[in-house]
C-alpha cells in the first residue's frame, strides 16, 4: 500500500516535472521565436530604400564638357588648294584629373567651312561692330557653341593691333596670321590657327581655371592665387533665386527733395539683363527710399578738392550701420543683393570717394563682395528755396549699378588676353557668350554641389542608424540622382540649356532632401544608456527562463550518468 502511494507520488512528481520542463521549453521557444523578432521590428526606425549604388557611382565624378566650334574661312584666308583639302571636322580632347574623385574632359568639336556670299558681304563692313550685327541677322547659333570667322590679314574690319574681336552674340572675328600667306601645308595652317582658337575659347566658353573654381565644393581649394581667391569671394554661389533691393538714402530731406524714377530705370536697364539670365536663376526686385539714414563714418574735408572725401579704408565701416536700417522683405532664404544710392546732405556736399592712393574715383561707387554696392550721388543744392527738387539721372546711376550687379552675379570680365577686343554688351547688358560662360560654370557648380550633398547625405544616413528616412526623402533623393545623371549626360553632349535646367532641378531636390526637417538626429544613445533602459525590462523575465533551461540541461547531462548508476 505504502509502495503504491509512493509510486503514485513519484509518478505525479515526474509527470509535473515533465510538464514543467515542457512549459519552460515552450515559454523559451515563444520568447525567442515570437518575442525577439517582434521587439526588433517594433523598435527599428523606418528607413525607405535609397539608391545607394547609384549614389556611390556619383561620388566618382567624371565630367565631360563638349563645345561645338565652327570655324568659317572667308575669302583670302586660304589658297584654293587648301580650300579643297579642308577636313570637315576635327575633335580635340583635353583630360584633366582634378583629384582622385573628380575627372574632367573637355571636348572641342570643330567644324571647318568656307564663308557664304552673304557672310562675305557682312564681313566687308567698315567696323567690327557692324559686321557683328549683320552676321547675327544671318544665322543663330545654339547655346554653348562658338562661331569664329577668320578674316584675311588685309581686312579692315578689325582695327589695328587687334587680332580678335569678340561680338555680342557667340561670334568672334579672328584675323589670320602672316603664316597663312606663305605656301605651307594645310596642317601647319590649321595648327597655327589652333592656338588662337584655344585662346578665343578660353575667353568665350570656359577655361580650366573657371571650371576648377566652380568645383570648389568638391575639391579643397588648396593654394590659390590672390586673384582667384578674390574672384571666388566676390560672386554669390549658385542659388535658384536672388533678391535685389535698390534703396535711395536721403539723410537730409529738408534740403533735398529727391525724385527717382526707379521703376522705369529698372524695367529699361536691369530687367533685360535679368530676363536674359532667367535660365540661370529667378530674380525678384524691390526698391525703397530711406529718410534720415546716415553713413556711419564722418567724411573729411579736403581743401585741395574743395570737397569732402571718404577714404577707401573707412568704407568698410559704412555698411554696417546702414544695413541695420535696410530691412528685408524677402520671404525666401535666397541671397539678397543691396544697391544703395546715397545723396549726401548739404553740409557734406559734394562727397567723393578716394582710393588707397588718394585719387578720386570717377564712378564714386564701391561694392562689397556678396553684399551689394553703394554709390554716392552729388547734387547741387543751389537754390534759394529749400527743399530743392532733384531729379536723379537714373542712366548714370544704373550705369554704375549694372556692372556691380554683373560682378555680383558672376559675369566676370577678366582681363582679356593681348590682341583681344571685347565688343560692347548691347541692350541686355549681357552678351550671349557671357551668358554661356556663366551657364557652363554654374552647371558644373550645381552638379558638383548636388553630388556632394547627395553623397554626404547618404554617408550621414549610413553612419547614424537612428534617423528615420521617410518616403518623400527617398523620392527626392532618387529624383535628384536622376536629374544629376541627366545633367551630366547633357553636358557631355553639349546641350547647355538643358544641362543648366537639369542641374538646377538636381540642386533643388538634393537641397530639399538634405535639409528636410525630419532628418534630425537627436537620439544619441551611448551604450551604457541602452543597457540601463533594457535591463529592467528584460532581466526579470529572462532570469526564470534561463535558470529553468539551465536546470533542464544539467538534468539531461546527469540522467545518462544516473541511468548508468542504476543499471550498476
Amino acid at each position: 500500500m505504502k509502495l503504491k502511494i509512493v509510486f503514485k507520488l513519484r509518478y505525479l512528481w515526474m509527470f509535473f516535472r515533465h510538464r514543467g520542463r515542457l512549459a519552460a521549453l515552450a515559454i523559451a521557444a515563444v520568447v525567442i521565436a515570437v518575442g525577439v523578432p517582434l521587439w526588433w521590428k517594433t523598435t527599428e526606425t523606418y528607413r525607405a530604400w535609397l539608391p545607394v549604388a547609384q549614389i556611390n557611382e556619383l561620388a566618382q565624378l567624371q565630367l565631360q564638357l563638349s563645345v561645338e566650334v565652327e570655324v568659317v574661312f572667308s575669302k583670302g584666308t586660304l589658297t584654293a588648294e587648301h580650300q579643297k583639302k579642308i577636313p570637315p571636322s576635327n575633335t580635340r580632347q583635353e583630360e584633366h584629373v582634378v583629384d582622385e574623385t573628380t575627372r574632367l574632359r573637355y571636348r572641342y568639336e570643330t567644324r571647318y567651312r568656307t564663308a557664304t556670299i552673304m557672310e562675305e558681304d557682312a564681313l566687308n563692313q567698315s567696323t567690327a561692330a557692324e559686321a557683328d550685327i549683320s552676321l547675327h541677322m544671318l544665322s543663330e547659333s545654339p547655346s554653348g557653341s562658338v562661331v569664329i570667322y577668320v578674316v584675311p590679314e588685309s581686312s579692315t574690319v578689325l582695327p589695328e593691333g587687334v587680332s580678335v574681336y569678340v561680338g555680342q552674340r557667340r561670334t568672334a572675328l579672328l584675323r589670320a596670321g602672316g603664316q597663312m600667306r606663305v605656301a605651307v601645308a594645310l596642317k601647319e595652317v590649321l595648327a597655327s590657327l589652333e592656338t588662337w582658337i584655344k585662346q578665343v575659347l578660353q575667353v568665350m566658353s570656359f577655361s580650366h581655371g573657371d571650371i576648377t573654381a566652380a568645383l570648389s565644393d568638391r575639391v579643397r581649394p588648396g593654394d590659390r592665387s590672390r586673384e582667384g581667391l578674390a574672384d571666388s569671394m566676390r560672386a554669390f554661389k549658385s542659388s535658384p533665386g536672388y533678391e535685389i533691393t535698390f534703396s535711395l538714402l536721403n539723410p537730409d530731406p529738408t534740403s533735398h527733395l529727391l525724385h527717382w524714377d526707379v521703376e522705369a530705370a529698372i524695367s529699361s536697364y536691369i530687367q533685360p539683363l535679368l530676363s536674359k539670365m532667367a535660365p540661370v536663376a529667378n530674380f525678384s526686385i524691390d526698391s525703397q527710399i530711406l529718410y534720415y539714414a546716415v553713413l556711419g563714418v564722418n567724411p573729411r574735408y579736403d581743401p585741395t578738392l574743395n570737397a569732402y572725401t571718404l577714404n577707401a579704408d573707412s568704407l568698410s565701416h559704412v555698411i554696417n550701420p546702414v544695413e541695420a536700417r535696410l530691412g528685408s522683405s524677402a520671404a525666401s532664404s535666397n541671397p539678397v543683393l543691396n544697391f544703395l544710392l546715397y545723396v549726401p546732405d548739404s553740409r557734406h556736399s559734394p562727397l567723393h570717394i578716394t582710393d588707397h592712393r588718394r585719387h578720386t574715383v570717377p564712378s564714386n561707387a564701391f561694392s562689397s563682395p556678396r553684399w551689394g554696392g553703394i554709390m554716392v550721388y552729388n547734387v547741387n543744392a543751389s537754390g534759394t528755396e529749400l527743399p530743392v527738387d532733384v531729379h536723379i539721372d537714373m542712366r548714370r546711376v544704373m550705369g554704375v549699378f549694372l556692372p556691380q550687379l554683373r560682378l555680383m552675379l558672376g559675369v566676370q570680365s577678366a582681363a582679356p588676353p593681348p590682341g583681344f577686343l571685347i565688343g560692347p554688351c548691347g541692350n541686355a547688358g549681357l552678351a550671349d557668350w557671357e551668358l554661356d560662360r556663366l551657364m557652363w560654370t554654374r552647371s558644373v557648380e550645381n552638379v558638383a554641389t548636388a553630388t556632394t550633398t547627395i553623397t554626404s547625405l547618404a554617408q550621414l544616413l549610413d553612419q547614424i542608424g537612428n534617423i528615420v528616412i521617410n518616403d518623400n526623402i527617398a523620392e527626392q533623393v532618387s529624383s535628384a540622382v536622376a536629374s544629376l545623371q541627366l545633367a551630366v549626360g547633357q553636358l557631355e553632349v553639349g546641350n547647355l540649356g538643358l544641362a543648366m535646367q537639369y542641374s538646377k532641378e538636381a540642386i533643388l531636390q538634393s537641397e530639399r532632401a538634405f535639409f528636410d526637417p525630419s532628418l534630425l538626429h537627436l537620439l544619441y544613445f551611448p551604450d551604457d544608456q541602452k543597457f540601463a533602459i533594457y535591463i529592467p525590462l528584460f532581466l526579470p523575465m529572462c532570469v526564470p527562463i534561463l535558470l529553468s533551461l539551465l536546470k533542464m540541461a544539467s538534468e539531461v547531462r546527469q540522467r545518462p550518468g544516473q541511468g548508468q548508476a542504476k543499471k550498476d
Partner: protein
Amino acid sequence: MGTAGVSASCINMASCSSLKILTLLSLFLSPTIVETNNIEAKAGQFFSSGHTNNWAVLVCTSRFWFNYRHVANTLSVYRSVKRLGIPDSHIVLMLADDMACNHRNPKPATVFSHKNMELNVYGDDVEVDYRGYEVTVENFLRVLTGRLPPSTPRSKRLLSDDRSNILIYLTGHGGNGFLKFQDSEEISNVELADAFEQMWTKRRYNELLFIIDTCQGASMYERFYSPNIMALASSQVGEDSLSHQPDLAIGVHLMDRYTFYLLEFLEDIHPSSTTNMKDLFKVCPKSQCVSTPGHRTDLFLRDPGSVLITDFFGSVRKVEITTDTINLTAPMVHLEDTRPVRELRTEIQTYMDQLPVAEIIHQKPKQKDWHPPDGFILGLWTLILLVFFKTYGIKHLKHIF
C-alpha cells in the same frame, strides 16, 4: 613693443649707447615704413581671412530667476557683437527665460552686468529670436544644421554660406560632456560635434569660434573633429565655473567670471582694432577666474596670432572700388500704369452676428466622452476577489465580510 624690449635688455648690457642711437633712428624711420606696409597689409588683409560675412549664435540655456547671470552673460556678448558691427539679421539670439520682464526684477526692462547697475546690457533694441520654451536642444540643432521647417522666418535661420565666420556662444549649467537645456534635457558633446560636422559637409561656415561658459566647459569641445574650429571654454574638466559677484539690490549673481572679464576685454575693442586671438586666450587667468580657461586650436588652419578678434566678433566688410561703368544710351521707357483697375465692390457688408443668443439658449448639451459607469470598477474588483476565494477556499470569505 619692440622698443620696450630693446630698452629692457639695455639694462643688462654694457654698451647701451649704440643701441640707444639705433632705437632713436628706428623711431624716426618706423612711421614711414609702417605707412607703406599698412597699405600693403590692408590690401593683403582682403585675402587673408577668407570670409565675407559674420554670423553669431548666442544661446542661454537656463531658466529661473536665480540663473539671471546666464542671461546677462549672453546679452553682454550680444551687445559687444552688435556694437562691433554684426547686424541683427545675422545674429540668432536664444534666451531661455525672460529676466528683464521677470516679476522678481526690481528694475524691469533691464539686465545688468555689473554691480551698482553700471551697464545695462539689455539695451534699447534687443532682438531675441528664440525665447522661453523655444530654446530646446532640437531647435538649437535645427538652427545649426539648417533643417528648419519651411515656415520658419528668415530671422530665425542661420543663413550662412561657405564664406561666413560664425561665433557660437553657449552658457548655462553643464557637466562632463553635456550642457543642460531648460532643466529638462541636455545636449552631449558628441551631438554637438556631429552637428558641426554636418555644417562642414554642407559648407555652412568658413571658420567657427566656439565659446562656452559652463562648469567643466572644456569637455564640450573635446569631441570636435571638423576643420576650422577654434574653441574656448571657461573651465577644465573637473572644475566649476564660478559666478562673479552678487548685487544686493537685485538679489542674484549678475555675471559669471569668465564672461565678465570677456566683456571687459571686448569693451576695449572697436571695429578697426587689430587685437588678435592670442589676447583672447589670456582673458581671465586662474587668479581672476579661479577656474582655468582652456582653448583648442588644433583644428584651426590659420595661426591664432593672425586671427583678428573682429574676424569673429565684428563684421568688417571687404570693399572694392568700382572701376567699370557702362555707358547706357537707350532712353528710359516710362511704364504705363498697366495694373488693371479693380472693380469696386457694390455689395453691402455687414458684421456677423456677434452673440447669437437664440442659438445659445436652444443648443443641445455637448456630447461628452463615454466613461464606463462608476460601478464598473467596483464590480471588477468584486469579481477578482470572488475568483481568489474560489480558488483558495470559500472559508476565507467570512473573515472579510
